[in-house]
């Protein structure tokens, strides 16, 4: 706050305070008004009586004023004056968070020392994990973790980067950056059609046989390095299994062809700084429990 406005507020506050105090004390005593017991206000023949306030109300006024002075001295209220207690919303929030952290630290430390497979059966861990999942993961993977177009289903047995506790934890901690190159310019439109046909046959779907056999050769040249000779994929590289009917980017013919032609660059963000090791451990257990 600019110093002018700070002083302006201080002036208003102090002036009101002094004014109110003056009004209170100036009106405390008065001339005796004789036997007149009405204020003179009349409406519809109803007169307003002048019943005096009880004396203890005066004491209450004084108490509120003392309270007001003490409050303004201790807490920020007078312009830029910060108050003798140095209280702010932020430091109260930080204190409370620190307190809550301390309360929960012991529990998280306890779980952190236990293996994921063990705590994945603990209902308390699952409850916490579900809440973290809703806040951090459900935006992409869905609140039921069954995934969506471009975001893998976490409840089945198909894992692009591996489904062991260690690899799940690594995926959450460091994130994952997929790099399926665009093959359109390398193998041409004809090549894309051929490889697509080959993939369809790998999945037991109908395809032109001559196209498929040509595609198998192209596959053995370009795709085998990552997806393996039989197309079972390689979790170490994040190359998905192409034979189980699960398609991250859609299993329709044109969708498969598009993935080959233009490539895919899925991106799972890293959560290490966002969540910290102890929360990631619990989240790992939750994700692990979804398929076990």
């Amino acid at each position, binding site marked *: 706050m600019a110093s002018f406005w700070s002083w302006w507020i201080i002036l208003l506050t102090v002036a009101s305070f002094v004014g109110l105090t003056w009004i209170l004390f100036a009106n405390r005593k008065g001339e005796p008004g004789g036997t007149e017991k009405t204020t003179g206000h009349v409406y519809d023949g109803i007169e307003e009586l002048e019943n005096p306030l009880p*004396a203890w109300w005066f004491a209450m006024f004084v108490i509120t004023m003392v309270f007001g002075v003490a409050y303004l001295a201790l807490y920020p209220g007078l312009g830029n004056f910060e108050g003798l207690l140095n209280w702010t919303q932020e430091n109260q929030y930080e204190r409370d968070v620190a307190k809550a952290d301390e309360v929960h630290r012991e529990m998280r430390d306890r779980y952190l020392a236990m293996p994921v497979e063990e705590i994945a059966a603990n209902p308390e861990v699952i409850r916490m994990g579900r809440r973290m999942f809703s806040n951090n993961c459900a935006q992409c993977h869905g*609140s039921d973790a069954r995934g969506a177009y471009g975001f893998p289903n976490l409840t089945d047995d198909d894992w692009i980067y591996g489904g062991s506790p260690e690899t799940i934890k690594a995926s959450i901690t460091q994130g994952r950056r997929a790099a399926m190159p665009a093959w359109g310019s390398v193998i041409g439109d004809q090549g894309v059609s051929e490889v697509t046909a080959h993939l369809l046959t790998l999945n037991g779907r109908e395809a032109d046989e001559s196209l498929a056999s040509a595609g198998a050769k192209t596959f053995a040249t370009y795709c085998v390095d990552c997806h393996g000779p039989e197309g079972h994929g390689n979790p170490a590289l994040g190359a998905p299994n192409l034979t189980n009917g*699960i398609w991250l980017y859609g299993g329709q013919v044109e969708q498969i062809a598009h993935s080959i032609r233009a490539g895919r660059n899925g991106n799972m963000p890293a959560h290490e700084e966002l969540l910290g090791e102890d929360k990631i451990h619990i989240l790992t257990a939750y994700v692990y429990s979804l398929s076990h």
Partner: protein
Amino acid sequence: MSESNPEQIDLQEVAPAEVGEIDLYQRRERIYTRKVEGYFQRIRLYTGWPLLLGYFILPWIQWGDRQAVLFDLPARKFHILGMTFWPQDFPMLAFLLIIAAFSLFAVTTFAGRLWCGYTCPQTVWTSIFMWLEQYTEGSRNQRIKLDQAPWSAEKALKKGMKHGSWLFVAFMTGLTFVGYFYPIRSLATELLQFSAPLVAVFWTGFFTVLTYLNAGWMREQVCKYMCPYARFQSVMFDHDTLIVSYDEKRGEPRGSRKRSADPSELGLGHCINCELCVQVCPTGIDIRKGLQYECIDCAMCVDACDSVMDKMQYPKGLIRYTSERELAGDTTHWLRPRIIGYVLVLGLMITVFCWQMLTRIPLELSVIRDRNQLYVTTDSGAIDNIYTLRLVNMDPEMHEFEIGIEGLAGAQIIGETEYTLNGGEVRTINLRIRQRPEQLATPSSEFHFTVKATDEASLHTRHESRFVKPL
């Protein structure tokens, strides 16, 4: 001055009259109430005792393995006998309070401030404290004398006993009150062992101090200056409302006389000006001045005056429950549109409330759609929508529930549909629903989630939601 114009009256130097400034705030005058017995005080006693016993004993009664009446704020569960209410039931409480307020208005229209005079906790606890005061310090005159007397061992003893007994009653009141919100058996033992949680100690102390101050020190000041009901009760009064009133026609002119004297010969009314009605009044007013806002309809003056009338062998009822119309020489109209209206509306509200209570289904389902992705297209071209369901079993018993959908023909639920929930359990359930897009007429279709207990036919509910497909 003597040389001045003879037509002018001589000025005289006169000292101004002593006009001291006065305090505009009213000093409180101590009210020393005189003990009174009689018909209406017996009514107060016989109606008050059951209510007080109920208040003090209720928290100690057990229901199964828990307290019969317990408002468990941290768990947000409110147990009343066999029923457990949840925050979701709050409209019921609001409804109940509206009924209570309406009953209060109806009673006030009919019979004035009966609530204030007989059942208001402020009056009841003030009466208890006055009784303790009478017991420890003696009668009205003894108390006035005691207060004026210099401090002595006897005075200190009496005062100590009075405040000690007040504090004891106040503490029992505070303990009982907190006992409705915190299990009273553990509260009592924890307080005795000095191991009660700070918050329980604080609130017990808080209500102890407030009871002590209210019933011991504030008394009629609460009714006169704090209670809003006292201020707006006059709008419910009409000419036929029962009020405690002095029969001016019969009583005036008032004056003392011998018991044997015939008042008509002396030119006097029936009021012997004994001031008993003033001395017994807990709010310190003189009822003979007419209806005043301080009057709480407690009828102490009625009993006091009746006892005097008995002694004088005059008919009772110089001060009595009567109405303005009756005082004016007419008769009170009992059945009047206002009263009939109040009774009808009250009856209707109570019926609706009871019906609501009896048909209450202790089960709640809420549904949240995933919004980050309105829909998911599967490999096979079907459409998935994802939902988070929250199922609350508000019944104290364990039940098995089955989730279904209505209004989405041919759709399939992906995920578990059968759940077993403990009594009072809240379960979050994630489901998706799969539907072929060609079976959906509109981009957004309304349907319902249903849930029913497989082991209890009366436990079922539904919740509306929407299914979205690509345009």
